[in-house]
């Protein structure tokens, strides 16, 4: 048994039992961050803050939401929006945060791709991040079901139908997922369960994994420099703060994180109070009607690019392309054959690959929302083919990349 002495202070009392001094060092003051990074490295903190906002607002929504197909719409639009004090605020925060968190995730992912932060021991960071992305997608989709509006119902119908596998006609699987022939009570109840317990638990576990994956390789930096963290941290602790290449996470980088979070929150709350329409689709304010499909049906913006990859092809090819798009980002660390873990602009062809990928995904996103007619249809088709072609050429262009 450990030896305990009479505590000299509350801090000491806690330290003897919980080693708080050590924990604080490991988590903050001696968690070393390179200095040559920019505000894009604050996206992780922004995601953590946004996830916290989702968690808190979700808890308060849960107090009044009723997962019943007859009362769900009413409980959201009447009880929460009209009756509950500040119910509207929780709902707007929740809806806007759910949408904005994907914007930040995409920025976070493209930052990782641009700086090659998925290579040289950082593969697990990328993979756990991709798992988080997929789980968040499922969380967003299941949450979208809950208000039981027209878009909830028809998105539920269409997305679950994907599991029929086209010509495979796995209707049994679709019915198993729904627990009914159409999205009905069983469907709503189980997606409610997924949204409020199973998926959030998975997300929190994955966040732990994502952070843990960061400890050994440390975060990347914008110059692709290999920093000797041990030597540099000694330098810092010896007092040469300015000369060291690293800084403490707390409070050195934390203060910058908070500055970026502050700016982000200005943008976020502007959306919550004054421009929330993009995150709360008007069509979903019509109650679910299983006998009437809305004139235009489209997923939330963050799913549009993969939805567009599904759309221009015949059902089976479309499903294969869609499946490809869903998993291909996982393979990025293994398809990139280059040894260079540096910014894309120093990597020759890869720089072109990166910018084309970014622009093409925006094009796919736009085409996914526009009606699949005329020129939009053609653009979407070409963009979908280009998307796949880019992944096919990636191993080749990176293999012949010069070492920098």
């Amino acid at each position, binding site marked *: 048994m450990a030896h305990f002495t009479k505590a000299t202070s509350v801090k000491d009392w806690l330290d003897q039992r919980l080693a708080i001094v050590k924990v604080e060092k490991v988590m903050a003051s001696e968690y070393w961050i390179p200095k040559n990074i920019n505000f894009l490295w604050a996206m992780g903190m922004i995601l953590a803050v946004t996830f916290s906002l989702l968690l808190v607002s979700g808890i308060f929504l849960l107090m009044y939401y009723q997962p019943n197909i007859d009362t769900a719409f009413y409980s959201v639009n009447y009880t929460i929006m*009209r009756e509950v004090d500040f119910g*509207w605020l929780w709902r707007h925060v929740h809806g806007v945060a759910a949408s904005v968190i994907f914007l930040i995730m995409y920025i976070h992912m493209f930052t990782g791709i641009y700086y090659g932060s998925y290579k040289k021991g950082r593969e697990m960071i990328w993979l756990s991040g991709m798992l988080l992305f997929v789980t968040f997608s499922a969380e967003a989709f299941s949450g979208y079901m809950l208000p039981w509006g027209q878009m909830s119902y028809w998105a539920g119908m269409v997305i679950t139908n994907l599991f029929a596998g086209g010509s495979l006609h796995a209707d049994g699987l679709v019915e198993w997922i729904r627990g009914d022939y159409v999205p009905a009570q069983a469907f709503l109840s189980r997606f409610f369960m997924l949204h409020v317990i199973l998926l959030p638990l998975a997300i929190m576990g994955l966040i732990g994994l994502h952070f843990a994956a960061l400890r050994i390789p440390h975060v990347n930096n*914008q110059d692709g420099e290999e920093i000797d963290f041990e030597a540099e941290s000694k330098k810092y602790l010896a007092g040469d703060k300015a000369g060291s290449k690293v800084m403490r996470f707390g409070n050195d980088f934390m*203060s910058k994180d*908070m500055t970026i979070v502050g700016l982000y929150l200005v943008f976020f709350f502007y959306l919550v*109070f004054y421009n929330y329409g*993009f995150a*709360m689709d008007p069509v979903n304010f019509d109650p679910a009607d299983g006998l009437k499909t809305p004139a235009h049906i489209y997923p939330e913006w963050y799913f549009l690019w993969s939805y567009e990859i599904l759309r221009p092809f015949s059902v089976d090819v479309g499903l294969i392309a869609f499946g490809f798009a869903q998993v291909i980002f996982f393979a990025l660390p293994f398809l990139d054959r280059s040894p260079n873990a540096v910014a894309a602009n120093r990597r020759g062809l890869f720089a072109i690959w990166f910018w084309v990928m970014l622009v093409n995904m925006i094009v796919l996103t736009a085409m996914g929302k526009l*009606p699949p007619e005329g020129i939009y249809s053609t653009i979407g088709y070409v963009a979908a083919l280009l998307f796949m072609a880019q992944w096919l050429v990636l191993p080749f262009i990176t293999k012949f990349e010069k070492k920098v």
Partner: protein
Amino acid sequence: MKNKEPLIAVVVIFFSLVTYYLVEPYAHHVLHKEVISKNFAYADLPAITKTGDATRGQELLMGAGACVGCHSIEVAGIPATMTPHDAAAAYGVNPPDLSNMGVMYDEKFLADVIKNPSHAMMNEHMFDAEKGLMHPMPPFYGAGGDIDQEVADMVAYMQSISVTKEDVTPKMAYENACGRCHALEYEKWTQIGTHKNFKDKKDDLAYQIDFIKYKESITGFMGKLPPDLSMYIRSRGEHFISTFIEDPQAHLPGTSMPRVGVTADTAEKVIEYLKDAGDTKRVEREEIGQYVMIYIVIFAIFAFLWKRQVWKELH
């Protein structure tokens, strides 16, 4: 080394805004037909050229015009002869009370609706005399004199008995112009009146039966049950509702929704009522929003000052 952060910020913001522009304003511009308001001018309807005589108009309404056969005029002491659901069973929809028509509806519309109801309401596609489909409101063919003068008299009478424009409440506007076809559950409005809290379950069930009968009649008349409008302010938005009220056919050619012919003022009040129903906390949202924005800017400033202090030693 040069600070690249401003450039990076520009790139990030640029691509975010492009994406936003494409999936929101641009996509919605493509997806939804743009209907421009004509400010409730009803330019297609002829202007009233004669000066109406309210006294003469009253005689016509009560006598030769035969209006009170179907319409009540509560302020003139003429109550409805039938319950709403019986009236709907007879005519398809409960005919409106005429007490405040004069202030809520455009006078050109009122004149035209008396002479040719389905023309004024733009639902001629629903009624074809040759097939025996008559508009439930028969046209007024004149009482022997100058028909334009007679119609002007009737309009003048309706205007003379109305409350003033200022006294029209959003609730009155909704109930008169929309409420006989559209329920508004969140304001406890049904097409046959405000749904009271009955203490006795039997009374409630009796009310429900009347309500169901009314809905059946109007469903038969309109082709489908006109939707509940509780959340329309969020699902359709102010601009859509306003232009739809003004000219339903411009949005949905062939819709059985008639042009209701309300004035711009009445339409505004209807929209205000829909906001009360579906966007109840809008004033609170604006107010709280200001405080939160002020706070969060202060938060960001203090975070920046903290960062500046901490980072002084790092360079």
